[in-house]
């Protein structure tokens, strides 16, 4: 079944079952592998993308439900203030969870220019990092807020 949606400003039409998670359409059908698979149950945040600017878990979002909607992935961030802050503080270690972390952080900063520690906790606690980059993620969000 053909489904059309907008990814990073470009319309894409894919022929997949409508119950296919957005995650796998991005990764397998469109070859955009920046969005990661971590848990398949919206528990870890590795698959976070934006749906009309809101952070969502693409592993739990059926492609059929985003027809005609705007999706932004890590490939579409275009070196924003969050990515620059991530570079300035050398946040990533293995880097696997970081696209999801940066998508969550970008959505947070779009809604809240000056997040408190509690705001950061609330927005970022759905994203697991096993390497333990949390101190740098927190500092980088503050750095991005200051420099945006």
């Amino acid at each position, binding site marked *: 079944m053909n489904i059309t949606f907008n990814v990073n400003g470009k319309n894409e039409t894919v022929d997949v079952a409508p119950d296919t998670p957005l995650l796998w359409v991005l990764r397998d059908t469109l070859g955009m592998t920046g969005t990661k698979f971590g848990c398949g149950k919206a528990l870890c945040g590795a698959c976070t993308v934006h749906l009309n600017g809101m952070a969502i878990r693409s592993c739990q979002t059926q492609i059929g439900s985003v027809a005609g909607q705007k999706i932004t992935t890590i490939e579409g961030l275009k070196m924003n203030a969050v990515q620059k802050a991530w570079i300035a503080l*050398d946040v*990533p270690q293995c*880097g696997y969870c970081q696209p999801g972390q940066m998508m969550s952080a970008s959505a947070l900063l779009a809604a809240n220019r000056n997040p408190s520690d509690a705001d950061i906790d609330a927005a970022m606690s759905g994203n697991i990092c096993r390497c*333990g980059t*949390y101190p740098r993620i927190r500092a980088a969000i503050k750095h991005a807020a200051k420099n945006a």
Partner: protein
Amino acid sequence: MEEIKNQSRRDFVKASAAVAGGLAIGFHLPGKMAQADGGGGYAMPNAWVKIGSDNQITLMVARSEMGQGVATSMPMLIAEELEVDFSKVKVEFAPPAEVYINSLLGGQLTGGSTSVRDAWEKLRKAGASARMMLVSAAAAEWGVDASQVKAENGSLIGPGGKRMNYGMAAPKAAQMEVPKDVPLKPVSAFKVVGNVKQKRIDTPMKVKGDPIFGIDARVPGMMYAAVAMSPYIGGKLKSYDDSRAKNMPGVKAVVQYSRGVAVVADSYWQAKKAKDLLRVEWDQGPNAGLNMQKIWAGIQQAAKQPGATFRESGNVEEAMPKAAKTVTTTYTLPFLSHSPMEPMNTTAQVSADKAIIITPTQFQQLIPHVVAGATGLKPEQVEVRTTYLGGGFGRRVEVDYAIDAAEISKAAGGVPVKMVWSREDDMTHDSYRPAGMYTLSAGLDANGMITGMRFHSTSPSISARLFPSVVKDGIDPFAVEGIDNFPYAVPNLKFTYQMHDTGVTVGYWRAVSHNLNAVALECFIDECAAAAGKDPIDYRLAMIDMAPSKHAWSGLSAGVAVGPRIKNALQMVKEKSGWGKPLGKGKGRGVAVMEGYNTVIAMVAEVTVSPNYDVSVDRVVSVVDAGPLVHPDQALAQMESCINFGQSACMWGEITVNENTVEQNNFDSYRVARINEAPKQLEFHWIKPADNQPPGGLGEPATAVIQPAIANAIAAATGKRAKMLPLTPENLRAS
């Protein structure tokens, strides 16, 4: 070294004997040596340095990049002596080859916090040797003596304004004789190594989502595989019905392989949906009905055995009855899962005469052998490409998932297949950190000092499965690390280890048995300090063994003369942490110290414990003596990383088994730290290295130090000493 001849899944490695100074695993590698001349527009003066005719310098990285920063630190060591602009070099992951073997482990293997330790001299020499060959090539070209040619910033400068870049000299340099005597510059002259401003090479790529992890691999014609593996530990496939699965859209094949049934389809989601429709029957195998009650009963029974003695001095049997006071404790520590964020996966293409294996692995050297064993090919017909690793933590020392993908590709007729495990597959088919029981008893004299001590551990051996030849006389060196180097001066000691297989597959988990032995020890020392009525830091300081002793099983630790370093670190952490200053109600401080991987870490944790026993970690102060740092900012990142990993383990980590099935299968049932739970404040103090002090490892040791520091802080805050990890409210309340 012996060649690996027989590969079975449970014991696929015939390892050589351990050699002095390291735990040599020792493989003979039949594959090609690195080429001296790569052809194709570049030349290689040696296996580490590739120089393009366009003067592009590419440095080979022979360790797996799993977050610890080897893709930056290893090339930094080469570049220091090669005299190139480090900001312009590229890096490439090396294929398996003899030249890339890690001397401390005896295999091309990333683990044991050995990458920098092994590379420290070796890679600087590789850089210097390549530079000398480039200099010789330019000198020959110009007809001058090598002493008249200077290497600087990727260029060779000769007398009278003569100049050529490395790219021009490289083809000739690759033909030059390899210098035998390769002098190195002194530490004081370093420009690249130790640069506090150095950034990671891979960060710009990683913030764009560009790097290729195993799961991102794509090859032409690639199919996707989802798998059904036995939910039972050691279970076997009995039968399966694929009548519904094979008719699902996109499904190309349903195949049986050693571990179960795989559905191969055009996309992962199609494969996964069809896999869910398989009806599979399993034979529970030899562990039928296994559960924690049986596992702990087995461990308790085994613990009654005397075990193998790995350290003994004086006469503990005579000393103990004379003690003024005796402290005895048994700690039990649970199985843990590695759970890196990238689930296990491999892309494999196995045809009649060749296999290509694209995989996130810590042990690329083993893969040709095991894939050959599984497919009937020869090891030299197996090409391994190492990708970025989405975390490793020891899980990817195992090669099970590479074998699986190879078998599936072969069974599916040789099509390239990307096999991706679900999180559930990953968590229930891990090689778990061993569970164990640790009984410690100490005899204290009238002053409270320890005059005799017994340590008896009962736990499974990891090496008995993976590297059986390193196990000797009932002792697995990886089971006694973190206690064999017991740092206190106690005249009468007897330390024993009882190996006991529980049926659960166990594997190397970040810091391995330091996370068992040193955790038990440093909690116990606090218990002794409490029994003696002494301050925990002063008590430790008074007992440090200052003799330059070396112990039989020192393995990857310094093994010798760490007393003064431990004393120094403890004194500094006492001062820096504000030890002794009053804290509020429900708060406490705990200390722990350890030498592991030739790094000494002393740590003080501050916690707040609520009346319901919910624990928050407020502040952690670490003093680190790791010798010279190659990449200081990422040395710091490894400390941050270990603290997070150890915190997750000791506060929530627990894998349990019921009905021969692992009960935790995702991050809802296996809890790990999230950003709101991370310590609020982390402070690090680095001890200035002594002259000629070699680097210590940093990828692992702090995981074992943060755990007793937190447990000791909770005890200080509440008076509750948990004898069982994790430090959950339930376990704390019960203690």
